[in-house]
């Protein structure tokens, strides 16, 4: 799964630490999310969506075919 977190954060001129503080997670978590090394839980994904005021599916892009995902 990929995401637009880095772009959205850059648009708001936030640092990773700013975003981490807003979400209540560590900076390492934000970095892992932005580099696609970690997919967030559903509650965290919704928290991110609420923060940026966009639907989850516009932030997180499920580009893995269903057959590969299972």
């Amino acid at each position: 799964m990929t995401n637009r977190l880095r772009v959205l954060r850059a648009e708001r001129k936030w640092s990773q630490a700013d975003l981490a503080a807003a979400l209540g997670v560590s900076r390492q978590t934000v970095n892992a999310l932005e580099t696609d090394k970690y997919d967030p839980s559903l509650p965290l994904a919704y928290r991110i969506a609420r923060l940026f005021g966009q639907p989850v599916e516009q932030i997180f892009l499920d580009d893995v075919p269903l057959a590969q995902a299972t």
Partner: protein
Amino acid sequence: MDTLTTRRYFTELFLWLALYAVLLIGSLAVLDRHLVTWMPARIVVGLVPMVAAFGVLNLYMRRYRAQDELKQKIMAEGIMFGFGATAILTFSYGFLQRTADFPDVSWFFVWPVLAFSWAIGEWLACRRYQ
């Protein structure tokens, strides 16, 4: 959500370890001087230092719950690696004792093996998400 800060965690850890040291010294003093001779009582006195270990266990669980989801995943992967590595190492040593006459070792060695492999596991997991 538990708000156990790193500073508070290490402060509490230090206090539990200090209590462990005090209990251990006291327990050994009582047992070595044979102040208690009745065997069931000696067993209880010998296990008294482990009271502090339960405190450390409780503290670690609180620490785990206070982390965000990625850190929890890293901690869990570290424990998983440590558990598996310790199982493999101790079981392998058991075979070597049977087949190659390796010497008996104290059960005290299990914890250092677990702690070391747990630390390696957490380090590896941490690297994965950097």
